[in-house]
C-alpha cells in the first residue's frame, strides 16, 4: 500500500536543483537560472500583453452589452460602473414593442431578412455559373473578365449611389426592397465569383468527364456532381454576401427616404441614434440584436474570411 508513495518520495530529491538529466554538467548554474527566469518573465509579459489587447478590444463591446441591460438611472449615473447593478430587460422590451419610435423592431428585422436572404440566394446562383465558366473553360477575355471583377469591386459606393439613385428614381425602385436586392446582389458578385472560382477549380475534372461518358447531360453533371462538391464553398461565399447585405448602409440610407416601414436594420439604428433624446439603453439593445447575426456567421467562417478579402491577392 505504502510502497508507491515511498518510491515517489525517494525519487524526488533528484528533480529540483541541477537536473543532470540533460547530460551536461551543471557548469554555470547562475547563468542557467537567469536564462530560465528570463524565459518565464518573457512568457508572463507576453500573456499580460495578450490580456491587455483582448481587454482593450472587448471593452467597447462589453460597454454596449452592459448599457443595454442597465436601467436608465444607472446609465446616467455620475460614477459609471462596468456591470449593471440591477440588470433589466426593459430596454429590449421597448425596442421589440417599438415603444420609442412607434414601429416594432420586427418590421425592420423582416425587411433586412428579406433583402439579405434574397440577394444572397441570387448572388450565389449567378456567381456559381460564372465561377464554373472561369474555372472550367479557357476563352478570350477570361483574364480581362477577372481583372474587371477586381477593379469593379473597388469602385466607391459614394460615387455609384448618385447615378443609381437617379436611375432607380426613374424606374420607381426607390423606397422599395426590390431596389436594394438588385444592388446587393450585384455588389456581392465580384468577391463571390473570385472565391467560388477556387472551389470549382478543386473539383477534379475527371469526375465530370466520367459522368459525361456514362451519358449524363450537362445539367445532370452540374446538379449531381459539381454542386454537392462545391456546396461548402457556396456556404462560405454566401456568408460573405450575407454580411455585406446585412451591414450595407449608404444605399439603404439614400434609397429609403421617409417611409420608415421600409427601413432595414442599419437605417433603423441610425434613425434611432439620430433622433437624439439619448435613449442609450434602447439604442444599445437595438444594436446588439442587429449585430448578433453577422457576428455568428463571422465566427462560422472565420478561416475563410481572410481568404475572401485576399481573394485577389493570394491564390487559394
Amino acid at each position, binding site marked *: 500500500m505504502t510502497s508507491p508513495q515511498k518510491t515517489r518520495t525517494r525519487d524526488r530529491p533528484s528533480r529540483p536543483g541541477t537536473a543532470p538529466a540533460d547530460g551536461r554538467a551543471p557548469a554555470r548554474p547562475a547563468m542557467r537560472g537567469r536564462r530560465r527566469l528570463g524565459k518565464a518573465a518573457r512568457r508572463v509579459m507576453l500573456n499580460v500583453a495578450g490580456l491587455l489587447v483582448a481587454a482593450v478590444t472587448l471593452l467597447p463591446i462589453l460597454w454596449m452589452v452592459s448599457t443595454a441591460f442597465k436601467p436608465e438611472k444607472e446609465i446616467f449615473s455620475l460614477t459609471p460602473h462596468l456591470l449593471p447593478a440591477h440588470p433589466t430587460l426593459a430596454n429590449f422590451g421597448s425596442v421589440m414593442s417599438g415603444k420609442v419610435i412607434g414601429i416594432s423592431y420586427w418590421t425592420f428585422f423582416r425587411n433586412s431578412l428579406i433583402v439579405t436572404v434574397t440577394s444572397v440566394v441570387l448572388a450565389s446562383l449567378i456567381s456559381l455559373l460564372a465561377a464554373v465558366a472561369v474555372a472550367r473553360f479557357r476563352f478570350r477575355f477570361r483574364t480581362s473578365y477577372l481583372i474587371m471583377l477586381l477593379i469593379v469591386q473597388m469602385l466607391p459606393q459614394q460615387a455609384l449611389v448618385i447615378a443609381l439613385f437617379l436611375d432607380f428614381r426613374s424606374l420607381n425602385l426607390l423606397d422599395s426592397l426590390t431596389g436594394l436586392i438588385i444592388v446587393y446582389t450585384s455588389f456581392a458578385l465580384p468577391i463571390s465569383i473570385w472565391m467560388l472560382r477556387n472551389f470549382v477549380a478543386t473539383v477534379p475534372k475527371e469526375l465530370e468527364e466520367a459522368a459525361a461518358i456514362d451519358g449524363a447531360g450537362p445539367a445532370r453533371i452540374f446538379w449531381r456532381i459539381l454542386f454537392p462538391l462545391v456546396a461548402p464553398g457556396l456556404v462560405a461565399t454566401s456568408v460573405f454576401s450575407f454580411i455585406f447585405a446585412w451591414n450595407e448602409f449608404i444605399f439603404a440610407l439614400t434609397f429609403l427616404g421617409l417611409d420608415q416601414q421600409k427601413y432595414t436594420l442599419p437605417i433603423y439604428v441610425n434613425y434611432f*441614434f439620430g433622433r437624439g433624446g439619448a435613449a442609450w439603453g434602447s439604442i444599445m439593445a437595438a444594436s446588439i440584436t442587429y449585430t448578433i447575426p453577422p457576428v455568428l456567421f463571422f465566427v462560422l467562417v472565420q478561416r475563410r474570411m481572410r481568404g475572401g478579402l485576399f481573394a485577389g491577392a493570394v491564390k487559394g
Partner: protein
Amino acid sequence: MPYLLLLPSVIAIGLVLVWPTIQIGLLSFQIYGLPQVSGAQPSQWVGLSNYAAVLRDPEFWLSLRISLIFAAVVVILTLTTGTLVGLLLNRLGGKMAAFVSTAALLAWATPAVTASVIFFWLFDPDGGVVDWTLSKLPHWLVGSTNWAGFNWTTSALPAYTLLTLILVWQGFPFVAVSVLAGLKTIPAELHEAARVDGAGPWRVFWRITYPLLKPIFLVLLLLSVIWDFGVFTQAYLITGALGNRDEYNLGIYAYAKAFQLPPSYGLGAALAVILTIILLIITVGYVRASVRQGATA
C-alpha cells in the same frame, strides 16, 4: 458555353456597377439638379465647369486634406497595431492566442453602424465613460482640458481622432490574422538561426519577417488605403449626418453636394469622379500586385 454562364453576372455587374460609373462621368459635365430630374428643364452640358467650380471651392481642398491625412494616420496605425498583435499571437500559447483572436474577431465582425454608435456613446459628453475617466485622471497626464462634458464630435480634430480609434479597432484584426497566417509559413529555423547569431527582435523583423511577408504587407497596405480613404458610414454617423461642413471628408462632401437640398448631382458627380480616380490609381497598384502573384492564372 462559357459566355452563356457568364451572361447573368455580366448583365448584373454591367447595369449596377459599370453603367452607373459611366453615368457619373457624363453627369459630371452637366448641370443636373431638381429641374432636370423632374423634367421641367433639359439637362445642360457645361463642359468642365463643374470641375472648375470644385477646384475653386475651399471646402473641396479641406475635405481632400482631411481624407488624405486621415487615411495616412489610420493606415499606419492599423498596420502597426495589426502587425504587433499578429506577432504577439504567434508567440502566445494556444489558449491565450485563441482568447485574443476571439476578441479581435468580435471587433472585426461588428458592423460599421454598430461600431460607430458604440464609440459615440463611449465618447458622449453626457454620461460617456471616456470623458468621465479623463476627468478623473491627473492633469499632468491628460492635459489641462476640462474633459468633463468634452464634446468629441463638434469639431474636426476630436471627431477624426474618434474615427481613427473606430477604424483601427475594426481594422487591426484583419491585419493581425493575415500577418499571423503569413508567419506560420515562415520556417521556425530561420528565426532561430537569426536569434542564435545575436539578432534582436527588431532586426529579425526587418531582416527576415518583413521581406518574406512583403507581398502580404503590400496587399494589406493597398486595401487599407482604399478602405480608409473612402470611409463613409462611420464618418457619416460620427460627424453628425452631414451636419458639420468643416468635418467632411471627400466621400461625404461628394455625397452632401449631390443630395443635400438643393441637390446638385452634376457637382456631386464631378467630386465622385475625382474620388473614383484617386481610388482607381491605388486599385491599379493592387491589381498589379495580385497579377504578379499569378492570381489570375
